[in-house]
């Protein structure tokens, strides 16, 4: 963290969206989105499926035209030159399956304006780094799914883009390759590149990103630097772990007068307090209620908690379910 550049430096923001709207027939995908991604940020675009994340990205990349609103990339309206400075890993992965790896990567680089003579050494280096050096002449369809995904990732960064857009980059990768990819992303970040993460895995984004924007049903719920988002959200939150979790213990916790809400994950519980209450009050009440504690800590609200507070129990629960399904 110490070596990180200041994300909101004097430079122009990399992405600026003003009043972005998009409808598909009767469905409103996005209703007036404002968003600013500062240079050098690792920015998480979060939200449940159908929140408008992919639509937003597609409009950034000129794949869709917005119905209304303004898009500025690197300080000016979208141009071919601006698009060349962006690398994109779409959620829906796909490559020409019959092409050979090196030829495909050469083509993808050329689409971004990098001539074959320049891309050739880069392709070799990337394949080397991801352990695919011996597959340069293989056809895509001969590679495993995970390796195909690595090739697609190389295709997204081969032209050394200033802005890297990664839509659900870790889905479909095994744990080892997830780790490899995480390290590469960290490297990109150290090189000062701006990274836009698009994901519905909110806990993961919370760990990786310094900025977030949470979308729900085509509208922005909250955005900004994570620390600021938490501070602005306010409230008092306590993370506690019960010695032994039972439904009965959970019910007793919920019944305490200073408790506004509970977010449970096994025996880990995040408690939000009613305004005016403080953590000491809760600690006393918990002990008095005869519950045994293994951990008790006053914390900043998690992003999920913030989402829950803003959007409501129902939407948060369905999002949680979605993530659990994705995990399986």
């Amino acid at each position: 963290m110490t070596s990180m550049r200041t994300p909101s430096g004097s430079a122009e923001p990399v992405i600026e969206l003003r009043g972005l709207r998009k409808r598909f027939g009767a469905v409103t995908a996005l209703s007036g989105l404002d968003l600013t991604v500062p240079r050098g940020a690792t920015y998480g675009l979060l939200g449940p499926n159908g929140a408008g994340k992919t639509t937003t990205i597609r409009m950034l990349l000129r794949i869709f035209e917005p119905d209304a609103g303004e898009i500025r990339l690197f300080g000016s309206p979208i141009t071919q030159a601006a698009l060349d400075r962006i690398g994109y890993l779409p959620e829906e992965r796909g490559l020409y399956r019959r092409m050979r790896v090196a030829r495909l990567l050469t083509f993808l680089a050329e689409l971004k304006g990098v001539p074959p003579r320049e891309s050739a050494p880069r392709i070799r280096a990337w394949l080397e780094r991801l352990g695919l050096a011996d597959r340069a002449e293989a056809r895509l369809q001969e590679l495993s799914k995970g390796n195909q995904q690595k090739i697609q990732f190389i295709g997204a960064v081969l032209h050394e883009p200033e802005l890297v857009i990664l839509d659900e980059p870790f889905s479909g990768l095994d744990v080892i390759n997830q780790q490899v990819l995480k390290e590469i992303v960290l490297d990109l970040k150290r090189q000062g590149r701006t990274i836009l993460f698009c994901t519905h895995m909110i806990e993961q984004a919370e760990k990786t990103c310094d900025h977030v924007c949470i979308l729900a049903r085509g509208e922005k719920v909250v955005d900004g630097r994570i620390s600021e988002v938490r501070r602005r959200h306010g409230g008092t939150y306590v993370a506690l772990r019960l010695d032994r979790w039972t439904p009965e213990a959970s019910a007793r916790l919920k019944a305490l007068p200073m408790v506004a809400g509970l977010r449970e994950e096994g025996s880990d519980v995040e408690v939000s307090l009613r305004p005016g209450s403080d953590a000491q009050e809760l600690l006393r009440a918990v002990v008095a209620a005869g519950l045994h504690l293994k951990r008790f800590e006053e914390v900043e609200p998690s992003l999920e908690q913030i989402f829950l507070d803003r959007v409501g129990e129902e939407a948060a629960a369905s999002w949680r379910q979605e993530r659990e399904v994705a995990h399986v």
Partner: protein
Amino acid sequence: MSRTWAVVKREFTEMIRTKAFVIGTVLGPAFMVGLIALQVLMAKTGAGERTIAIVDATEAGLGSRVSALLAPARASGEGEAGAAGSRGDGDVARSRFEVELHPLGDRDREALRAELLARVEAKELDGILWIPSGVAAGEGVLYEGRNATNIAELERVRGAVQVAVQGARLSAAGIDPARVGEALRPIAFDARKVGGRAASGTPMALVMLTYMLGLVVYMVVILYGQAVLRGVLEEKRDRIVEVVASSIRADQLLVGKVVGIGAAGLLQVSIWIAFAAFALTRGELIAARFGGTLPELPAVPASLGGVFLFFFLAGFFLYASIFSAMGAIATSDQEAQQLQFPVIMLLVVAISMMMPVLNDPSGTIAVVGSIIPFTAPIVMPMRAAITEIPLVELAGSVVIVTLTALGVLWVSAKIYRIGILATGKRPSAAEVWRWIRTA
């Protein structure tokens, strides 16, 4: 522009690396060589030596007349056989007949038949011709033989019997058959095409060339147009298009695709034409090796090349654009099959115009066919090969085809832009119309 070029290069190189392209390129000329060789060989080997027995039951000795007409040694019979209507197709070699005559007389018919059939079985004879005594009165003639399915040979035999019988009937009526033969002698008839420029060569070769031109355009449009459709469908189905579309505009991608695949088609046709040109200049040598000759080549104006190239490319662009839009609308191979059906019907209409255009290259069908932009790419090169097209007509057709191709490309690009990212169910016609309006 450089991005479109990258797409052109990819489509072209990937296309010419496919097995289908390599096989098609090699098989095209092989097919042409085979066609020539086959004709020469057929002309040589189709004819054979036939030995037949004629069993003559007539009093008048009709059998010897028939024998004289069939046997090549007696040249005097040739004219009369021609007069009787046997085809005078001189360039196809004809079978040679050896005839052994068996006047039936008092011999036992069944015994003779058994004996002759045994010889047919032993392949000493090819067949037996039975001429009954009442043949002049209408009694049926029978041929039994191993070659009884060879229509050309049967026709020769039938013709000879007919001439002999007709001669006998004429004689019986007191008319000299030789004088009738003289009166019925065929006239010399030759066909030469005229029409603005001096024509040379055999009409048949010109017809062949014209037909080939039409077919080449048709084949390339179908094969490579469908390759465009499959390419679009692949990008869509395999979700490739999102990466590409994030780098270049949909219309650039579409144009790059059509140009790249079209270039591969043009390369293939060029190889075919180069090979054909080589084969035609050396054709005599090749044919001579097989012991045959080629028909005299038609002289065609140099402008034909330009007309062909323009309509070939315009036709390809026109149809490939439609095919690409169909690929963008379809979400599966089956849907693509259904959607391309009307497009192929348009081409079939053009193909069905080929014969009328050949018969009357300046007629109504030919003129209408070269105004309709969807048939002009096939009709125009054909007309240009066989007749002089008025400059106004040619220019008009060029303008109409060009404008239509551009218009179709424009509409297709709009459908493409939205269609390539639309997945799930196939859009309705109303939805496609909205894409065109809003894209």
